[in-house]
């Protein structure tokens, strides 16, 4: 259905998000994307106290760090990115035009940006098939997934396209599985591995099953994720305040929230 009240580009995103469960788009705000990447490169140089050449530093990060040291590095880095107020601002700037079209214009943003670093062969950073809603997220949330390197095949993530979701629900109801790891083999022919390059952004429906496997490519994956929702939609276990912050409340709502009908005699 074409909605006459929205632009052609918005209609295309709308249809694609509903049909596939995600959109991949070219980022328009390159300045903010560069700011984010530079933040990481500076952190790595400071952490290792070495002035590396930045060319392919992220892709080749597995040559710098051992798997056993990865988690402490990652935690320190996550702490830094969430300490810097400009980080979330730039993250939002990169995604805003697409979020306005897919989610809404009065938005709540997750308080913390998450980071995933997947070294080749690392089995410690895996996410079995899951939907975020299964662990308490509201179905009104969308995930903005932002790669710092080109992601493809097992260096990327997979998602079950929306068109296959009904089939998946039937499968859940009809077949037994012992644990979450048993799910992937049952849907591996239906999932789509997303090819997304640096300079592009992925916004996906986290109600759809998704996850990753061991990165079997020769490069390290760096990606971030952060959830957005419309402010006045239902919250799941992830509440306003502790998990989400309103970031684009509009003047009319701000006024209306305090409005009281005048008392008359």
């Amino acid at each position, binding site marked *: 259905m074409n909605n006459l009240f929205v632009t052609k580009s918005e209609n295309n995103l709308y249809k694609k998000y509903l049909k596939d469960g995600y959109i991949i788009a070219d980022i328009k705000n390159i300045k903010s994307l560069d700011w984010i990447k530079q933040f990481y490169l500076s952190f790595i140089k400071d952490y290792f106290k070495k002035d590396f050449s930045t060319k392919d530093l992220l892709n080749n990060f597995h040559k710098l760090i051992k798997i056993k040291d990865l988690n402490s590095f990652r935690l320190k880095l996550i702490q830094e990115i969430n300490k810097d107020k400009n980080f979330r601002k730039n993250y939002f700037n990169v995604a805003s035009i697409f979020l306005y079209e897919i989610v809404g214009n009065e938005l709540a943003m997750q308080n913390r940006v998450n980071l995933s670093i997947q070294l080749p062969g690392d089995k410690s950073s895996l996410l079995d098939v899951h939907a975020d809603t299964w662990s308490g997220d509201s179905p009104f949330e969308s995930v903005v997934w932002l790669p710092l390197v080109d992601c493809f095949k097992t260096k990327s993530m997979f998602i079950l396209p929306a068109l296959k979701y009904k089939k998946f629900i039937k499968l859940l109801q009809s077949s037994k599985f012992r644990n979450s790891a048993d799910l992937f083999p049952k849907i591996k022919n239906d999932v789509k591995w997303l090819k997304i390059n640096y300079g592009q952004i992925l916004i996906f429906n986290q109600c759809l099953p998704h996850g990753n496997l061991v990165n079997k490519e020769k490069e390290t994956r760096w990606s971030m994720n952060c959830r957005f929702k419309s402010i006045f*939609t*239902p*919250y799941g276990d992830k509440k*306003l305040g502790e998990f989400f912050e309103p970031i684009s409340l509009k003047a009319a709502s*701000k006024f209306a*929230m305090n409005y009281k009908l005048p008392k008359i005699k």
Partner: protein
Amino acid sequence: MGERVPQSVQNLVIRDYCSRNNISYLLSATEYAMKNSSKVLFKIINEKNKERVILYSLFQLPSNSNLRDKFYKIVIKNKKKIYFALENKSLNNKDDIEIIRDIWNIKDVLPNCLKKF
């Protein structure tokens, strides 16, 4: 907040917040259990020797908006810095107050919005 988090867990969250933000944890205080009480909170923000106060959550502020406005006024007047550990937010100027106000207002309006999914 509509739900109760055990005090031991609240203290853990506050201690963790202090440790992550290099803040020395000195004394803890517990609000009276009587409904809608903010007596302890108002006593603390009026004390001269306590510059920084950490609350477990910003939803521990008075549920009455007039009382919250009074709280903000005293915080600014007495040059206090208030931290909310769970939400990782702080309050010591008018911009901070606006953010806290928005969050509270939205929380108050949400019961009138779509609730279930």
